[in-house]
């Protein structure tokens, strides 16, 4: 369970949010809404563990995420604006590398299957720079299929995805939630899921 207590964050001289509190229980998906510059990305980065809040605490199963860094990192997947994809590597190489960095040693066939599930089976062996933005986004999303982490932190995951891609991501989120996983998703579009969706409005 993730709980956020009285979070305050000041970037530069601007107060982005203050006294922000919420908790996320197994099976819950939360959408973060807010205008451009309202601090959605900052909030997600703080929750992921990149950077320190000005005030407040973020706890994972009751322990501050700084204190249980290794366990917390093993149970989270963070997809930010930078996808961490190298344009000179193929989707398969990118995925295998990302998995190795996040501490998963999975056989090659699992990676191939995950890429096929995201609709990249025909592009597995060509450099990622020849692929579209949406296809690159799908490479990053394929990590979600293989990663056993229970908390997904997805910053604008729908950008660049086509309608079929959006459906695929929604299905992934529904399956994750059904298995007891949690997700924080920021999006400007309405998110339509078959599971109950909470929203957090940043102003």
């Amino acid at each position, binding site marked *: 369970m993730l709980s956020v207590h009285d979070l305050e964050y000041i970037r530069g001289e601007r107060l982005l949010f203050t006294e922000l509190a919420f908790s996320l229980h197994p099976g819950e998906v939360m959408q973060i809404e807010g205008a451009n510059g309202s601090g959605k990305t900052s909030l997600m980065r703080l929750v992921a563990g990149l950077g*320190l809040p000005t005030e407040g605490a973020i706890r994972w199963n009751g322990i501050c995420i700084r204190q249980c860094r290794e366990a917390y990192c*093993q149970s989270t997947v963070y997809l930010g604006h930078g996808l961490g994809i190298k344009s*000179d590597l193929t989707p398969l190489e990118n995925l295998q590398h990302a998995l190795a960095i996040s501490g998963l040693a999975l056989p090659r066939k699992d990676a191939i299957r995950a890429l096929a599930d995201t609709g990249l089976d025909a592009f597995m062996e060509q450099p990622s720079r020849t692929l579209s933005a949406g296809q690159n986004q799908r490479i990053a999303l394929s990590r979600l299929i293989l990663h056993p982490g229970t908390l997904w932190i997805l910053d604008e995951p729908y950008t660049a995805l086509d309608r079929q891609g959006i459906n695929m991501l929604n299905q992934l989120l529904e399956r994750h939630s059904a298995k007891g996983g949690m997700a924080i998703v920021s999006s400007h579009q309405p998110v339509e899921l078959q599971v109950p969706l909470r929203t957090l409005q940043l102003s």
Partner: protein
Amino acid sequence: MNPAFSAFAALIRRDMILAYRNHHELANPLAFFLMFASIFPLAINPEPVFLQKMAPGIVWIAALIASLLSLENLFRSDYDDGSIEQWVLSPHPLALLVLGKVVAHWCMSGLPMLLLAPLMGLLLQMPPTSITIMEMTLLLGTPSLSLIGAIGVALTVGLKRGGMLLGLLILPLYIPVLIFATSAITAAASGLPVSGQLYFLAAMSLLGVSLAPWAIASALRISVS
């Protein structure tokens, strides 16, 4: 295999593949290294005796600047595409991952320099014994250059134009390496013992391997937060 070690190896492997696919970027600092040696005689004095005296300094200044040039982009693309964020969020120690990055960088800049240096020694009329010692100083000294340099790169990666600042930041820290390396080569040319200088270079590299990764990791954490 230990998963932390396999992440370390995966990072080295990835950088090797990327370097192989972009080999022109790899060649530029090396071409610079050779060019630097060949313009010196033209600019100053092609007299063999004079060149022999200058050679250790020329080789090592070329090595410093080539290392600076090759380091400049060490973390640039990883910073821009969000890879560094993934390293920071990896359950493995960030210091180990960045050490992998530096090892890969050394294999692609320090090692080729080591292979090119004898050619440079010949261009500068160095006697064979000096060339052997020069190779040893490069072998023991260039790891320090990569490690110290990476700290500076990690600190400046978040800045738009960090290139000049990087030079100002790390060139002073290269001075001890430069002093011991050049004095070893000069001593070898006059038949004096050089083990003292070589031990110092080795000690600096070992100290670098054990301490620099922590500094690089902290600097990267600051840069991405």
